[in-house]
């Protein structure tokens, strides 16, 4: 009988037995990481039309988030502030800064500044800032340390799995309502017991885990 298989093929089963799991694990791990929003979405940092520094305004100056994003407690959306809000201060401060050219133009003409949206949810997912802010979920939980960001980037994946992690076990992410915008606050450091936590209406926080909780 002719020797169809060369001798090295004897090692093939062993090589496969050892190699295949490794290759498979690498593929799984690669997809796990590179196909997940942790890789595809986190870190998204487009160049905004106005080089507004959250680090300077929210961090160094300590302006409360709600000075600009003032609808966050009453509406589903934390509205981007109108140009008027900028001009409240910049009528008096840095009035001739080149960086503020577009802001002044907008204030003069009434034309919107077209910011680029960073925290994009799919259109079939409905998120309400109102219920989270009044429930005791701080800004930092979803937006990261905005007070450290020169230009804002996406800090968290905003994926469904990530949302559900918190919805299934919200306690580690709850804080007293007066610390909502405090980016430095920490449950452990503050010695806060989330078991006693209640929302604005004095109710326990029970986030939904079913489809229509977010999909309408």
């Amino acid at each position, binding site marked *: 009988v002719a020797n169809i298989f060369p001798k090295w093929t004897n090692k093939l089963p062993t090589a496969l037995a050892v190699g295949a799991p490794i290759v498979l694990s690498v593929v799984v791990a690669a997809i796990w990481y590179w196909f997940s929003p942790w890789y*595809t979405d986190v870190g*998204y940092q*487009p160049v905004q039309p106005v080089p507004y520094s959250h680090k300077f305004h929210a961090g160094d100056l300590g302006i409360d988030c709600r000075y600009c994003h003032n*609808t966050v407690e*009453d*509406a*589903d*959306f934390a*509205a*981007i*502030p*109108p*140009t*008027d809000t900028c001009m409240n201060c910049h009528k008096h401060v840095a009035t001739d800064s080149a960086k503020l050219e577009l802001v002044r133009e*907008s*204030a003069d*003409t*009434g*034309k*919107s*500044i*077209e*910011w*680029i*949206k960073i925290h*994009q949810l*799919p*259109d*079939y997912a*409905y998120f*309400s800032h*109102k*219920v989270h802010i*009044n*429930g005791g979920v701080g800004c930092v939980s979803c937006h990261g340390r905005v007070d450290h960001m020169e230009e804002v980037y996406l800090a968290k994946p905003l994926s469904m799995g990530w949302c559900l992690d918190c919805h299934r076990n919200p306690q580690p992410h709850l804080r007293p309502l007066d610390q909502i915008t405090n980016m430095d606050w920490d449950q452990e450091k503050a010695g806060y017991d989330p078991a006693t936590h209640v*929302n*604005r*209406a004095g*109710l326990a926080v029970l986030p*939904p885990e*079913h*489809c*229509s*909780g977010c*999909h*309408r």
Partner: protein
Amino acid sequence: MNETKQPEHFWKTHTQLNKELHRESIDTSAVTDGVSRRNFLGVMGASAALAGVGLSGCIRKPVEHIAPYAKRPEDLIPGKPVFYATAFALGTKVTRLLVESQDGRPTKIEGLPEGGKGGGADAWAQAEILNLYDPERSSHPGTFDDKGKKADLSWSDAYASLDGSMALSRKNQGKGLALVVDTVMSPTYRRTLEGLTKGQLSGAKLYVADPAYPHNRLKGAEIVAGRKSYTTLTLANADIVATFDSDCLHTDGDWSSNASGFAEGRSRLAADERMNRLYAVEPTMSLTGANADHRARVKASDVGNALQAVAFRLLAKGVGLTAGGPKVYDFKFPAATDAILNALVDDLAGNKGRSVVVVGERQPAWVHALGHYINEGLDANREIVTWRKDSGMTTVHQLPQLVTDLNAGAVDTVVCLGTNPAYVATGDLKFADAYKKAATRIHLGLHADETAVLSTLHIPVSHYLEAWGDVQSQDGVTTVAQPLIAPLFHTPSLLELAARLRDGKKHNGLQLVQGHLSRGRSSSFAAGKNTAWKKWLFDGKAAVRSTVGPATASNWPALTKAMPKNAKAGTGFELNFHMDSSVYDGRYAMNAWCQELPDPISKLTWDNAATISRTMAKTNELANGDMITISWEDRTLTMPVWVTPGTADDTISLPLGYGRKSMGEVAGEAGFNTYSLQKSAGGYNPWIGFGAQFKKEGSTYELASTQHHDSLTPYNDKEPGTGVGTNRRPLIRVADKTVFLAKPDFVNDDEVIKDPTKIRSLSGRPQEDETVYKSPQQWGMTIDLNTCLGCNACVLACNAENNVSMVGKAQVLNGREMHWLRMDRYFEGSASDDNPQMVVQPVGCMQCENAPCETVCPVAATTHSPDGLNDMAYNRCIGTRYCANNCPYKVRRFNYFNFNTDIHPLHQMQKNPDVTIRFRGVMEKCTYCVQRISEAKIDAKVRGNGLVPDIDAKDAKSKKIMTACQQACPSDSIVFGDINDPNSRVSKAKRSTRSYDLLGELNNKPRTSYLAKIRNPHPKLATQAEKKG
């Protein structure tokens, strides 16, 4: 088997009874629009390849921009809807509205709620939102040449042309100026128009061109009251209601308020309460007739005679009708009709002060006057009928007069203000020819319509949601109509243009309205500084002195004079014109929501048809869709027939409002223009035509009727095995009030499995093991079939709220309409009956606790929420359609196509941002308006006690919920709420002994339950009805 009801007791069409159609849901899989299997596989391969590219190349979502206000108005919260009160008039019917505005764009129109009730905006009032965003609206002024081709004009040129023409008219003291208007219910507009026939324009004449203008009603009142008057009904106070060719619950008079009052009287079901009884005498099945306890099928020309017979028999019974009345005669009718008239006379006589006769607009004036005479004798004017003077323009002429004047050369300038006489003019007038005899023809309107293309100048006007105005309802309440959005096409309002006609100056609508309504008030009021004005806007009611005084009917000798000397019916077939249930008089023909709304009786969409009775179809060998040519005098029209139970023999019923061929994509293909057959010259009543002929064409026309789509078969003896262990499905449960009182839980007799402990799931588990629902609140719904009229307001509300796609006639024919809520319509009675009774049943998703759809979904796209909703995650759905196949109620809808790509930017503005826009290949269905539930739940968590308050809750701290269908229901038949709360309105309704589940034997445990229909037949006729049943 039920003791009284035969297998064929409930049915949908005659053809069904002929055993031709026994499919539960139309086979949609067979239709693939000409895509062959090979083609399909090829396309699939390509999509797979593309998908690969997509995965590697397009991971990052597209860049989206946020454009905040530069100056945000005070108190405006982006993303939070705001509601404004306004009002709208359709003919003489005024609806007060609450309009939702999302970031400055109105998205949903609802009735102004009052006392826990929705306020009942009908389908048309709600559909107006789509009219606002109609891409086919006229956006630019222009002039039309002889061929109807438009040449655009600039606004300044258009105004110059308009002002120039009017300056000329002023010079001539208005001589030769014709102003063509529609029904005017706005006090400010009315005064402006009256001003146009005075002073410098004193020679000008006003003509009305509006099929909804109640000529006959006003004239009938004028005969006996000495002046034009409106009679409004408080039907809640009536125990006996007898309608004579009046669809007063759906298209005639003040129908929403009538429906509400009627439902109130229907709901008096306790032993010591007087439930109302409705008699209908009519030639074609209207919704009012369909809801009647007794319905007499009488030719339109015999309706007046029937009323005479009623008067005669009342007098013969010794009921003292007012002295000085006319001499009335008795008439001979077929036995069935005679029995109903006798019962009616018996009831009217026995219920003086609590009974009323209602005559429909289609009947000539003398029938109205005779009705008033009977009502006076019945003492109905005390509690039921309210008389008010019409404060309308004192001297308006009718369209035939305009044509006469035009032909006589007495008119050189015609201004059509928001009217379309070239379309609505009856065929005999040959309006287009006459119109062209005027040198200057000016058309002001929303569309470049049939009249505009014949005009020398066309100026587009604003929709009522874009303009300031005011409306006064028939009962004298004035509402300020405030705009929701700036004019999309920078158009002036009709009111502003009317004011401009007088002096050639630009006017501001707000100032005009304030100026008129503030007469006799301080100057600060007119400047808008007064808080009263703001309160008027907020309340949707203006506290202005009503200009409509009471009127009294007393001139009976005039009635004697008006009565016909020889009231004999004409020969040949009778043509019977009526308003269409979907497009009304045609003004909603460009509205896809209305076109696709199935007619409540015929279930036709996208077309009208000549409806005839079964007997007439049989004798003339006509079937559904057969083309016939109707000829009357020198006018002919070829259109298809549709066999409809309840139509009088020798009568062809013709709905108006279709065949608008030049009106674009939506209206262009739909139906046939029946106005072209009508006649109105010489005082002829345009609604009824005598002496017409017809012949069969031999060709057929495809009509899209939804009557067998996704429907359930109520009784199915001939195909055993379709129910579980039974051949019968008691979907509809009906009883007479006497039966109900004797056996309040009669609905249980119909149960297929009488012992509830024996009901098992398909998997065989006993009921107790089923899913436990954890949330403190559990949503449920009841639909009261006793008060549901089938008016379709809920269906349209659902379309508007949930971004439901319209699919067009071709896809309706394929059974692919997307309505989440459908109106099942059953006829009741024996197969050979030409005049059956009717029952309607709105069916949406039942939110089954043991939902059969959920168990078959391979990807868990449809699952249960802890508060009892059958959730649908669109983005998870892969479109296997297993769920729809396993749904016993057939309420799931599949997106066969991308109905939502490339939609016009204007249509995009209407979409509700709180509801996902669905993509091709996705299943969708009713969610109990989960977006409203979620919003209310969030509000309850933030402001309330965590529980959404019941609709009846007194001191609610957070938002209440009404589903869109519930909000729209004029008769308050739909109740939604928490079934865990024993005191909620829905729990109380569910405790009713009339409550039953649809297909309860399947153990799906639906969350929607139905309350059985109760009828209240006259005792003498009840036995007969039973025999029939």
